[in-house]
């Protein structure tokens, strides 16, 4: 780390911080993916986590995923609440026996020294009703601040995980704020430069926060969104239906040829639902039924995935 130029050091720059994490997990054998090109509420929705957590094949990956939480927008007024922020996601299947040690080492790689910080694993069981998924684990605390989620997936899309995957989610802005010692997310140094060359998180995202907050809470076209939800749901089901096929080479076992495109529509439906929720047009009772509808899609996609090559049902070559 000391060989890095100042502006690349994780405690000086947000991008350096992300790069340090990527490098660390690359060294642990993870494939470093880029963000999925769809809007989603959490890195877990990325097919590299949701779908790859299912089935018997080993899978180690890490990636940054922008998380869209329309309801969390605060028009850029709140020091740490945003409708768009970054999560850094690590998934390792099967969960390695030293995953906790790896996690602690990764903190060291971004400048958090376990000799002066109080790092704790505090019970926090994870459940995603929309994904039909749950796991046991912790929220990881550093000096009283929650900085990561650590989960051993037990079930995803309604299916038992066999083997179990370990999932780590870092709240990047929050951690970087801590490491950089700033109290307002928009004051984060993004590029690690000083003076005229310095670009802050605010320079990059503040305007977007204002615009999207207005959009999410006031303007987003609800008639269109209701329609989009329905369309995504229909498309998902249609692609799922169209993807099933008997494979004579596999002794007429059923296989699925379009789990990923179908799952995209599930992601879409989930995000549209979040937007509708932010617009306050979904009542308490309806809310539950929308969540159930997305879950049904996720479960069907999970089932389809288990009948694909990467999902593990067919031989890999």
């Amino acid at each position: 780390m000391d060989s890095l130029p100042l502006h690349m050091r994780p405690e000086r720059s947000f991008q350096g911080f992300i790069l340090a994490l990527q490098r660390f997990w690359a060294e642990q054998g993870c494939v470093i993916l880029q963000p999925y090109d769809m809007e989603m509420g959490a890195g877990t929705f990325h097919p590299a986590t949701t779908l790859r957590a299912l089935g018997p094949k080993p899978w180690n990956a890490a990636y940054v995923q922008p998380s869209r939480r329309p309801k969390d927008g605060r028009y850029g007024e709140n020091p740490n609440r945003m409708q768009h922020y970054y999560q850094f996601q690590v998934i390792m299947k099967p969960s390695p026996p030293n995953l906790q040690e790896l996690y602690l080492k990764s903190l060291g790689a971004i400048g958090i020294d376990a000799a002066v910080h109080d790092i704790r694993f505090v019970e926090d069981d994870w459940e995603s009703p929309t994904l039909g998924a749950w796991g046991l684990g912790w929220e990881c605390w550093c000096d009283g601040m929650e900085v990561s989620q650590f989960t051993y997936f037990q079930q995803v899309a309604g299916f038992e995980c066999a083997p179990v995957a370990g999932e780590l989610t870092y709240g990047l802005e929050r951690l970087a704020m801590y490491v950089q010692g700033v109290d307002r997310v928009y004051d984060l140094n993004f590029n690690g430069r000083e003076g005229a060359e310095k670009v802050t998180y605010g320079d990059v995202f503040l305007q977007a926060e204002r615009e999207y907050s207005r959009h999410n809470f006031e303007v987003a076209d609800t008639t269109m969104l209701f329609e989009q939800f329905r369309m995504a749901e229909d498309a998902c089901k249609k692609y799922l239906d169209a993807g099933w096929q008997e494979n004579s080479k596999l002794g007429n076992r059923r296989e699925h040829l379009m789990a990923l495109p179908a799952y995209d529509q599930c992601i879409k439906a989930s995000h549209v639902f979040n937007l509708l929720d932010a617009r306050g047009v979904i009542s308490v009772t309806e809310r539950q039924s929308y969540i159930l509808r997305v879950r049904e899609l996720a479960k069907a996609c999970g089932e389809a995935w288990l009948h694909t090559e990467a999902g593990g049902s067919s031989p890999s070559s």
Partner: protein
Amino acid sequence: MPDLLLELFSEEIPARMQAKAAEDLRRMVTDKLVAEGLVYEGAKAFATPRRLALTVHGIPTRQADLKDERKGPRVGGAEAAIQGFLKATGLSSIEEATIQRDPKKGDFYVALIEKPGRATIDVLAEMLPVIIRTFPWPKSMRWGRRSERPGALNWVRPLHAITATFGLETEEPDVVSFAIDGIEAGQTTYGHRFMAPSAISVRRFEDYEAKLLDAKVVLDPQRRKDAIVTDAKQLAFAQGYELVEDPALLDEVSGLVEWPVVLMGSFEEDFLKTPAEVIRATIRNNQKCFVVRDPKTGGLAPKFILTANIEASDGGNTIIAGNERVIRARLSDAKFFYETDLKTKLEDRLPKFEQIVFHEKLGTQAERIKRIEQLAAEIAPLVGADVEKVKRAAKLAKADLLTEVVGEFPEVQGLMGKYYALAQGENASVAAACEEHYKPQGPNDRVPTDPVSVAVALADKLDTLVGFWAIDEKPTGSKDPYALRRAALGVIRLITENALRLSMLQTAKSALTGSQGKGVGDPDKLVADLLSFFADRLKVQLREQGARHDLVDAVFALGGQDDLLMVVRRVDALGKFLDTDDGKNLLAGTKRASNILSIEEKRDKRSFDGAPDAALYNLDEEKALAKAIGEVSAEASAAVAKEDFAAAMRAMAKLRPAVDAFFDKVKVNDDDPKIRENRLKLLNEIRSATRAVADFSKIEG
């Protein structure tokens, strides 16, 4: 005798599960030892975030040998019987059996079975894996490569190492040899995650505990708790403050650290403008830190106490600074929530309740609030409360549920309502009712006395009870998801402790008509059923107070008793009366009268109602009894009308000599049927006279 040391070393065990897990481990191992005939001298279990440990000392080295004689078939008996005998006893041929002579019944075979006791260490090696596999964690999980196999080990979090040794103090102990899912039991454990992570080789409990302490692990949760409290008090005291003790938080915090290091941090004085309860909830729930009181002001001090898990190389400065940052951010959120809440009047929040479902079948919160308002207004005059204030309080009492602060910290519901009501200039009783209408929450909670609070509290609870009764969601067995028993007990305490006069049937009916009129069935039946639920709760409460609950039945059996205060007073007077000699004898006399009557009623297939004929009395004792009944009835009824139950009981006492004398001298079943009938009618009069106070036949003993 040798000792067992067992340690299950894992990733972090949730704090709330540790104490029970330690106890379960102790119970399961010792129960099984005893079941295997291995009586031990003592056992103690411990838990830290990363380990469950158990020491059992004084276990015999071996099980005792078992000798058993099994009687078999007759010599020369059927071949099938002999084969069965061999199979059951494990003998390889009948020659191994001895023959017992019996000249009368014939000789028969006897098998001497000797079951040598097994070495304890083998018994342990067999039982420990079973215990680990069947351990009752509230939630458990699979992990790692083995999780794809069926039957993979489930544990609360990944299990990494098992230490299991058995042996004498003076000798090198043996490892109890077993393996579960690839984890071999051994004698290696690990110290503190950050300060002493290396492997440690342990022999037995004494060196185990000491080596852990060297490796910065305090094994005993009680020692960790004591250390935290002592240090926290000291830190607070050094600054002139006092620790606000919090046993539940202490339990949790001590389950989050293996090596407690107590530190004190500060926050800005300005935050103290936010209500103390909100500050405490913020610091406690979100940060698991203690708050500190300033004894000079009685209020909170701008300090908090945290428990870290390490001795940091910088003396804890970074940890304190980090925690201060988080607490500052949390408190500014809380302050922001509080100030935001103050900007909206409570009544302006109400429309939102129209969208919030209270219960699928019981409508929205808005509908419920309207019902409570209406019912509270009806109750108001009965409890001496101002109707307008009661209506106002009922309207506002739930509004704080929609505030930011209560959304964040549900435990301050009601209390925040009071603060917000005061802040918007509501009358003090109205504001108090916003908090107190939830009370009493349990048998130890305070009962409100302000009539406004009382009216709203009763209406709130009765609406709940009547509502769930109407949709047939009554508590059954141990299931009471809507806390209806607590609500009923609350009503009972509100009424009796405030000495309120209320017809329960009428009030419940009002609650019913005000609300879920639709599809309720027979309202009279419903409220009667609810009344008997109250009777049951009252019995439970009296039993817990050590009073005689059977007297409740005796009073309710009179019928028409729906004024709970009067029921309680009657029960009380009756209980005192039955403690006297007069009471006991009168009860015996009345029961005797009742018994005779019920036998004769059965025999004659008729009742003996109606006034006896004075002309048919031919004995002095009959006349005296008739006279006494007349006097006592009049006197007791007058006393009951004045609700002076003690006086009614005193009147009853006068009946006793006449009843005793009657049974002494008079033969009821006279040969003359007319006289017999008249005497039975007289007996019936005793029964009805005593019914002025209670149905004596329902009293036990």
